[in-house]
């Protein structure tokens, strides 16, 4: 098992190198660069940059070199100094920008993820066991509504209700009085209050999908002969349900964990903009708009790493859950 994990980790390295090249290539693809964007901004303020000034700026930022040379410079700094370059928009190191938003992003993401699984799996099980019952229809209807409603729309609706009922749309993650305050119980409570809407909004979309997957998988498993065998031994229905079909139905859910991990970071961009959440999504969005290439590149690279990592985690989990895969690993 350890050998398998090690081999998988080693195999990840060439994938990441390839991904980073592609990421960088794509980032510099759009016509123009940060300098043209900067010049346009200046022009909007009434100042014009001469061609000379622009060329000079390009030279200092290494933007006049071939993209692959730029890539090599970038990689060298990452590997040697853990320096992901400079964010032009924020005028500070990329790591500092990402750092600032990381903690809150992680909190929002993981709570949302936990919410998704904790809500979706039990509802999925219920829908499958009592399929075609009223409860199943209600769960399916809400699920489909959740899937079909655009996240930002749901966000606006919830904000409206919050404003009407509590006099506060609960924008952002903190109230203004806690925004820059030190951590205290009051601040945690304030954060918890502000988390409700984001979690519901970001969570429902994936919850709905997960309910359908869980329900479908379980319905498949519930009619398998091994369930009848278990029943013929005299086991109680609930014992059978959790020991056999539910456990088997978890496999495909675990294997989707890979992209859920990165999805939860990016999927919430528009919602985060609408709800004014201080998390990574909007930062990334602005970086792409402003051709802030190092910030955007780092962010994309980060997403790629998360996807690869997520896949690795789900593969390990699958091997742990499924003895058949485990033997194949031992054998090969």
């Amino acid at each position, binding site marked *: 098992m350890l050998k398998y994990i090690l081999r998988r980790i080693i195999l990840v390295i060439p994938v990441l190198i390839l991904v980073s090249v592609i990421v960088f290539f794509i980032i510099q693809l759009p016509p123009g660069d940060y300098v043209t964007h900067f010049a346009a901004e200046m022009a909007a303020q009434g100042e014009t940059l001469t061609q000379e000034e622009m060329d000079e700026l390009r030279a200092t930022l290494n933007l006049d070199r071939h993209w692959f040379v730029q890539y090599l410079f970038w990689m060298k700094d990452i590997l040697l100094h853990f320096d992901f370059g400079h964010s032009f928009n924020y005028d500070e190191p990329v790591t500092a920008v990402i750092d600032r938003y990381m903690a809150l992003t992680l909190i929002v993401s993981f709570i949302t993820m936990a919410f998704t699984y904790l809500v979706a799996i039990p509802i999925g099980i219920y829908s499958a066991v009592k399929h075609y019952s009223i409860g199943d229809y209600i769960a399916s209807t809400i699920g489909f509504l959740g899937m079909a409603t655009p996240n930002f729309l749901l966000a606006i609706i919830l904000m409206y209700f919050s404003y009407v009922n509590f006099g506060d749309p609960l924008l952002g993650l903190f109230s203004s009085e806690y925004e820059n305050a030190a951590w205290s119980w009051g601040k945690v409570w304030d954060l918890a209050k502000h988390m409700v809407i984001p979690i519901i909004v970001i969570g429902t979309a994936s919850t709905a999908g997960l309910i359908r997957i869980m329900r479908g998988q379980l319905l498949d498993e519930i009619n398998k002969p091994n369930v009848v*065998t278990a029943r013929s031994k005299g086991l109680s229905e609930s014992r059978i349900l959790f020991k056999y079909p539910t456990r088997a139905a978890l496999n495909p859910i675990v294997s989707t964990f890979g992209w859920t991990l990165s999805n939860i970071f990016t999927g919430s961009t528009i919602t985060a903009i609408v709800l004014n959440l201080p998390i990574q999504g909007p930062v990334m969005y602005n970086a792409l708009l402003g051709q802030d290439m190092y910030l955007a590149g780092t962010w994309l690279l980060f997403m790629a790493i998360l996807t690869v990592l997520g896949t690795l985690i789900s593969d390990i989990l699958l091997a742990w859950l499924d003895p058949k895969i485990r033997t194949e690993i031992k054998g090969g």
Partner: protein
Amino acid sequence: MNVNNIKQQPEEKPLLSVKNLNIEIQMDNAVLNAVDGVSFNIEKGKTLGLVGESGCGKSLTSRSIMSLNPKECETTGEILYNSTIDKKMNNVNIVDLDPTGKKVRSIRGKKISMIFQEPMTALSPLYTIGNQIMEAILLHRTKNKKEAKKIALEMLRKVGISDEEKRFDQYPHEFSGGMRQRVVIAMALSCNPELLIADEPTTALDVTIQAQVMELMKSLQYEFGMAILLVTHDLGVIAEMCDEVAVMYLGKVVEKASVREIFYNPKHPYTKGLIKSMPKLGSEKKRLEPIEGTVPLAINMRNKCGFYDRCSERIAGVCDVKAVPDTQLSADHSVRCFLYSEYGEEEKNA
């Protein structure tokens, strides 16, 4: 005759007595009579063969004995179970029990257990075979895990799995088909059931393995003394294993007799056809004789012989207009066919 003998009288009731069992399945706009008025007895320690082609209701019948049919099946009639060991289990009608309730669960696996057709899918791929065998033992025999493991290992040895300590911790995919079926048999027999229901236990296996598994079941029956209900479409298996045979066609038992009678003195045209369609060694004939036609759907077939369209001896105006009565030919031979009932007489009387 002494007093003891008289006291034992009630024990002569058959172990399992199926009376007028009906299983109906509600279709979109009709009712399918999947099992229609099936009756038979299983005596203690004996083997009854239930034979018939796919879809004739033999599996549904056998599963209803453990109340394992899907809830779409509307089951009526009686399945009376008389335990010879447990006095509380006397005249229990399994049809009336709640299929998820405690009572039926105390019968399943402990008193009546089952071997399924597909050893590949009957075991869960996610747990070791040790875990799956111990499950029933822990439920019905002992709460002690060590003791349960001991029983499980002994069962594995009995079904001919060598190196059982190592095999105990292996998963089903590490076993061949025949070995898996042995595991399933070990599982079914782990609680010394009084009745073993074997639903096509060898259909999915190679011919050589089939013979081994049958031989194994026979020797285990000799050792444990359980009765067997053997569900199969394979007449060869029936000839080898059974004391009595019930032939099913389209949800009805069309002929019921001892195994000798069925093979040497078949009465029902369907039974005759079945035996003719069986290949025989050293036979002069080049071709087998298949039964012509296909099985109709068991919808609105109550007042007609289900075999009518395929029967070479049908009597028009009789077989297709009324329900066929069961005729007792001798003490151990009954047939459901107008050729053997005095339909003319009945007509007059009616």
